[in-house]
Structure formats: structure tokens, C-alpha cells
């Protein structure tokens, strides 16, 4: 990869790619290329060392056992934490979101340590799984339009004092804590329960990741016609009773 290219790292597709999570990588890659950027995308399997020089890291969701294996291997590898201290951007969903926190409940019902890159702790809900379309307002500091997504999780995620809620739900469950918060972020590390995949329904979040990575305030516009049409349809679906 050349020095001038944007380095996009997709973390552990062998373990964390259950809900079309590759879509998040495809959307970021596409929107970067549409802006004329040279993109080097690296898919890193869980038996390979994680590069520490990436600009954007994407982490997907997974089933319970792969989630535990991914957490074990990421802790052992240590590369993601080094990348974050170098200023890398991380965007994670579902199981990946939980792994970035301090701890979560693993497939054996035990407390599994995460990476501590997000100030959150996850537990498992007792009730029904949270499944369905979600509509939420993203933290106004981020300057983004409403979040539309699809959630499917049993987990509940509590935010610690330094984490900011990524969004506040209007329809749906989000973090499942009852306060309406959805997702979390600490500086350049983001986590959400939305898959779908979420960046296909929220291309401006992909653009935010690009802007943070490139350290710019604006990007040239691209044709968002189909994204806009899909957003409108899904927002209307989320606000109607099933």
C-alpha cells in the first residue's frame, strides 16, 4: 500500500461478519473512491496480526462463540489498542461494539474482558431479543441526520462517565438500558447496535469516518439518490406499527 492511500482495515471477517457486516467496509471504500481517494482495504483474519497503521478499522457482529474467540485474539494481539493510540478511527457494530467495551457476557455465561476502548459495559437482557427497524437522533455534536437501522440483539450496554451516547432512539430499543440511548463513542471509537448494514442506510456516518481519517471538514458531494430513497422508506417503516 502506498503512503498516500487511505488504509481501511476490516477486522476478523472469519469471526465477525454475520449480518452483512462487509457492507460497512464496501460503503466506506466506495464513497472514498468516489472522492478520488486511493483506498487500500485489508481484510485481517483472526490468525493474522492486526496492522497498527490503519486509518479506519471496521468491526462487525458475530454469534456468541465467535465473539468470545474474537475478544481473546484481539486482546492477545494488542494491535487495535495501539492503532487507536495512534489516532485511528474505529467503527464497530453489535458483537464488535461489546468487545470494544470493558466487558461483556460470553457464550459460557461468564464475564469476558473487552478491549476497554469504549467506556461501556455490556450484559445480557432477560427479555425478548430486540429485533426490528430503529429510528434515532444522532448526538448533535456530530452534525448528522437521523440514524436509521435494524437491530437484532439480546445485549444491554451501559455507558460509563466518559462515553457519549451515539444517538437517542425515537423508535426501537438501542442499548436496551431503558433511557433510550443507542450506541456510544469515545473520541474516534464508535459502537452501535445497528446492523443492516448501518452505513448503507446512513452514508453520512461513512463520510464522517472519512472526514475524521482525512482530518478535513468537508468532502465533495456524491450522488446519494438511492441512499436517500432507501432512508425515506425505512424511516417511514420504523415509525409505523408492524
Amino acid at each position, binding site marked *: 500500500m502506498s503512503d498516500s492511500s487511505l488504509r481501511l482495515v476490516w477486522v476478523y471477517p472469519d469471526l465477525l461478519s454475520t449480518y452483512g457486516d462487509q457492507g460497512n467496509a464496501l*460503503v466506506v471504500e466506495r464513497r472514498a473512491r468516489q472522492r478520488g481517494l486511493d483506498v487500500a482495504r485489508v481484510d485481517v483474519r483472526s490468525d493474522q496480526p492486526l496492522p497498527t497503521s490503519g486509518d479506519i478499522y471496521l468491526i462487525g457482529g458475530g454469534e456468541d462463540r465467535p465473539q468470545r474467540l474474537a475478544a481473546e485474539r484481539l486482546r492477545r494481539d494488542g494491535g487495535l489498542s495501539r492503532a487507536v493510540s495512534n489516532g485511528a478511527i474505529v467503527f464497530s457494530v453489535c458483537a464488535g461494539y461489546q468487545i470494544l467495551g470493558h466487558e461483556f457476557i460470553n457464550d459460557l455465561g461468564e464475564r469476558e474482558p473487552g478491549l476497554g476502548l469504549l467506556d461501556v459495559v455490556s450484559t445480557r437482557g432477560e427479555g425478548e431479543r430486540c429485533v426490528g427497524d430503529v429510528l434515532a437522533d444522532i448526538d448533535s455534536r456530530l452534525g448528522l441526520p437521523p440514524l436509521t437501522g435494524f437491530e437484532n440483539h439480546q445485549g444491554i450496554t451501559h455507558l460509563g462517565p466518559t462515553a457519549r451516547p451515539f444517538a437517542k432512539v425515537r423508535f426501537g430499543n438501542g442499548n436496551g438500558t431503558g433511557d433510550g440511548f443507542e450506541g456510544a463513542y469515545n473520541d474516534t471509537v464508535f459502537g452501535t447496535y445497528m446492523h443492516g448494514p448501518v452505513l448503507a442506510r446512513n452514508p453520512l456516518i461513512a463520510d464522517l469516518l472519512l472526514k475524521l481519517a482525512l482530518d478535513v471538514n468537508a468532502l465533495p458531494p456524491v450522488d446519494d439518490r438511492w441512499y436517500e430513497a*432507501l432512508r425515506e422508506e425505512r424511516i417511514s417503516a420504523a415509525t409505523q406499527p408492524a
Partner: protein
Amino acid sequence: MAGAGNAEPLSPRAKLAVTAGKAAAAVSRAAGRGSGSVIGGKVALRLDPDLLARLARHLDVVLVSATNGKTTTTRLIAEALRASGQVVSNALGANMPAGITSALAGGSEARFGVIEVDEKYLAGVARDTTPKAIALLNLSRDQLDRAAETRMLAEKWREGLSGTKAVVIANCDDPLIVWAASSSPNVVWVAAGQEWKDDAWSCPSCGGVLQRPGEDWMCGECGFRRPIPSWALNGDFVLDPHGSAWPIHLQLPGRANKANATTSAAVAAHFGVPPQVALERMYQVQAVAGRYDVISFQGREMRLLLAKNPAGWLETFSLIDPPPTPVILSVNARGADGTDTSWLWDVDYTRLAGHPICVIGDRRLDLAVRLEVAGLDFRVCETVDEAVQLCPPGRIETIANYTAFQDLRRRVGN
């Protein structure tokens, strides 16, 4: 002996259950509520919960399960076994216990029961029907918002099939299938191939990363590895355990159906039908519940292809005619499809580059964004009629998921 149809008569209670079930099915049909087979089976099962076991007792039962290809393989096996006796089968794909009961109730003279089973019910149906053979084809992600996790399913099969008296005829190229089957005492391995690999990078036994040099696969950590097959699909040929190669001639298209034919030949051989005879009979199968059918519609020839999950779409892309043949894609996300469309992002749509593409269906906007990100040209249409009008006369490849496929069949009159 098993070949003479019913060796012992059904009990009065079972007979009543069969009769009541048939009456309910007839009422359901008359009321225009589908084929009636499921409701008939439900009524019959309620009257006699052991009915499935009792109906199966008189049959040489073959069970077929998989994520993809089970309906077609059930049909191929049924055709092959007709060489040696009457067959009763749930040919229309009603593959849960009620539908299976209903299908078996209609075959009192049969020697063989060839039964497609929904993945979630395999262990239970295997317990109830005491099968002679169980064919296991593949397991991959499917309808994730409602189905069990894929590996959990393999685990359930593994527990349910341990100690089974059936010979298990299983695909050695799918690590999840091997994990599920290898608890059985008697397995015949078939190298049927696996195009979709993204659900099997992680060792089902220990969680290690699987190594996949060429066609082989192995776990570097625990030694779990691909068994040596006794049957294999090799290009257009079936290789039998003696090393003889038998040509496959199918009207059904695609590599996946050649794989299904290979497994079916192995099943047939277990019941004494030689591969040559079995494969010749399989040629008769033209379409399966509307799938692969070519329909004349508004001056075009539409081929109807069903693809319900990423592995199914991948196999379908490999069988369609090359560009410039136009392709119509239709996706819904109703209850029977799973309400989550995220799987679209696991399908490599760049394989359609060069084809004119039209998208329809309830979730055409999800498809539109997916294709836009894949960098493809496409048109979004409201209806199949509108999409067909955009295609020149000639062949159109039409690929749809479950309820979208049913919608299409209704509209184009198949």
C-alpha cells in the same frame, strides 16, 4: 420385507387420523387455501401424535436436509429410487412434521418415503421415522433474524444423529456438515463441493481458523479435517467408490444441481440402484416447484430462479446465461423471507457486471443501494411487467427470494 407396501395394517386410530387429515386437506383446497397438505397433516397429527412414526414404519425412509438444494435433491432421489419401487415424497416442499405426515399419508402402497426436512426439525423427524438413509448437503447463514445460529444447528444435528441406525450420506466439503455427521456411526462421504465458504472459516470443533489449501480443509489446532470421500462430483461426472466415472445429464442447470445429483446417486446406490440407472432417471426432472422453469411472458422467455440466502445467490450467479442476457432481481422481506435484508451485503453482485439489471420487489431500494455500492448500472421498476418491457425479446434470467418468487410465479402464470 420392506418392498411389499404395508406389511401390517394401520391401527383404527391411525386410520381415522389419516382420513380426518385428508378431509381437512380437501376442505382447505376447496377454500382456496393452498395445496392443503400442511393443514391436513396438522389435523392428522393432533388426532394421533404417533402417526408420523406409524406411517413411516412401513417405508424405507430417506431424509434430506440442508440450507440449499433439499427440495431438488429430494426430487432427484425420488426419481432414482422409482427404479426399484413406488415412492411417496413431500415433493411440494412442505417440510415440517405436519406437511411430512400429510405427504406420507398419501402413499400407502409405497416402498420408499423420500422426505425433505426443514433443518430445525431434522433430529426430531429422524427419531420419529427411523430412516434408512439421511442425506446432508450443506449449512450456511439463512434468515438470521429468526433461525438458530448456523453452528448451533450443526451442533443440534450432531447430537440428534449420534448413534442413528441410518447411513448418513454427507458432503465432506462443508466443515459444518462434517461436524454434524461425524457423530454418526455409519457415514458415506460425498465430495459435493462448497462454493460459499464464509460460514466455515472457524473450526466447528475448537474455534481455530480453518486452513483451506485447494479443495482440502483442516484445522491447524485440533486436527479436525476433511474426510476422504468415497463418492465425488468431478466436472460433469460422478465418481463412484470403485473409481468409475458416470456422466451427469440433467435438464436442471448449474454446478449445485450436479452436486445434488452426485449425492442422490450415492443414496440410490445404498438401495441397490446403480449410478447409471439413477442418473438416467434424474434426467427426467425438468423443474422443481416452479424453480428453473422457463415461462413465455410478454414475448420473452423468463427463467425463474429461486435464491434465498447468500450461498444460494452465489450458486445461481454461476448458472445464468452470460451478458448481454438481462437479469431481473426481486427481493422481499416478509415473514417467510426473514425481515432483515442485511444478507444482501454478503452477496457478491459484481458477478452481474455486464448484464442489464432491473430490480423489483418490496425491498428494491435495498437492492438499489447494494448495486450502487457495487458500482453496477441498474434500473428500479415498480412491477415485473415494467421490468420485462425494458428487456429485449429473448431470455431473461429472473432471480428472486422466497415470497418474491411466489409473487413472480403468480404474475407470469406458472
